[in-house]
């Protein structure tokens, strides 16, 4: 999907074409929900947050100008919502990570099956991501899962490109070490 296409859809949506906006939602729902999911953990919460992001995008539709990549605008909104969500959950004491033993042992265990192995890796990665600070997790997720370049990530998280670079490096290193700690040597 090209950026031009996105902005074309935005222009049509601005003119009141709801099918154009629906198309934008359709295009970005999976990456956006995925981003939110990796940020907040729960798929259910992630879907709510991604919906919020689209609703908010629509509310500001007429203010949007094609001077940035559309995806950075959208992820920027979602990013703010996920950070608010994390902050609020922490405040309410709701975001309590599972004890690590439980997280890591849950699926798989000694099961030698391939599927179980994948699940084990997934659980390890989730626990590892969860152990990162939000500011490290967000840049890593935007880079690895959304494939954004450093410039775009800098726009989403509103910091300098050099900061993105060092944060991603640090996030990778922390995650790598955390996975080793959690027993993922042969990842």
């Amino acid at each position: 999907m090209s950026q031009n296409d996105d902005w074309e859809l935005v222009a049509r949506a601005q003119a009141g074409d709801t099918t154009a906006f629906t198309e934008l939602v359709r295009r970005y729902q999976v990456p956006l929900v995925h981003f939110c999911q990796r940020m907040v953990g729960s798929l259910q919460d992630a879907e709510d947050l991604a919906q919020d992001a689209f609703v908010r995008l629509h509310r500001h539709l007429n203010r949007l100008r094609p001077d940035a990549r559309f995806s950075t605008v959208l992820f920027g909104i979602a990013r703010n919502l996920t950070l608010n969500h994390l902050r609020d959950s922490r405040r309410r004491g709701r975001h309590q990570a599972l004890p690590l033993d439980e997280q890591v042992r849950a699926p798989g265990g000694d099961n030698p099956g391939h599927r179980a192995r994948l699940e084990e890796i997934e659980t390890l990665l989730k626990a590892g991501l969860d152990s990162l600070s939000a500011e490290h997790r967000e840049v890593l997720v935007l880079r690895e899962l959304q494939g954004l370049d450093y410039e775009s990530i800098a726009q989403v998280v509103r910091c300098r490109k050099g900061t993105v670079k060092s944060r991603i490096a640090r996030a990778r290193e922390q995650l790598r070490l955390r996975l080793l700690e959690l027993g993922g040597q042969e990842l």
Partner: protein
Amino acid sequence: MKDRHVLDELSAYIDGEAKDADRITRHLQHCESCARHRIELLKLGAHLRALPQPEESAAFAARVMARIEAQQTARPFWQLNLLIPAFAGTAVLLLVTTLALYGLSLTASSPPMQIAQPRNTWVDEEVVVSELAALINSGADVSMVEEPVLAAEDPLAPDPEAPVTMDEMLTVMAAAAPELAPAEPEFGEEDLEEMISTLASDEVGTLEELLVEYMHEG
């Protein structure tokens, strides 16, 4: 040091964002430990990208569009009291406290004058109401200096046990701002609307957003 290790640069290198990519490439050809580290980072990325993605569902887009439609057909937020009586007092209270507590500036005359300092402690609503009324009476262009964040810790956030009613709130406002109240016995919805119409449209937008958000949270 011409050929130092490149561990610190490998992250940017694998992302295609390293400044000195040629030198790193050359180094990797003969340094086993850096080369091994690069492979580890690549594997880490591959594992992350292999995390299962959520599934696409038509229901998702439908829900988004339904929410958007619901908002568009909603009445202006200061009229919500007719639709949601229990929310009415809260709406006014939020409007008033938001304006007053997050720092108001008066731009009618230059230089901009700070009317109400942002407060650390929450004040009683009568003071807030009278400050707001004074501002509006002076013909001020009321603009918010700080981005308001209505957080859960807001002690004035409505207690679900004891909602402030519209009547209570209007009584407080009328008492604090008799100039705003019409000769008729009650300070009514139209006056409130007029009061709000003195705000710049983007401020109203911000308030509306806050209220909509608040409603979703509540």
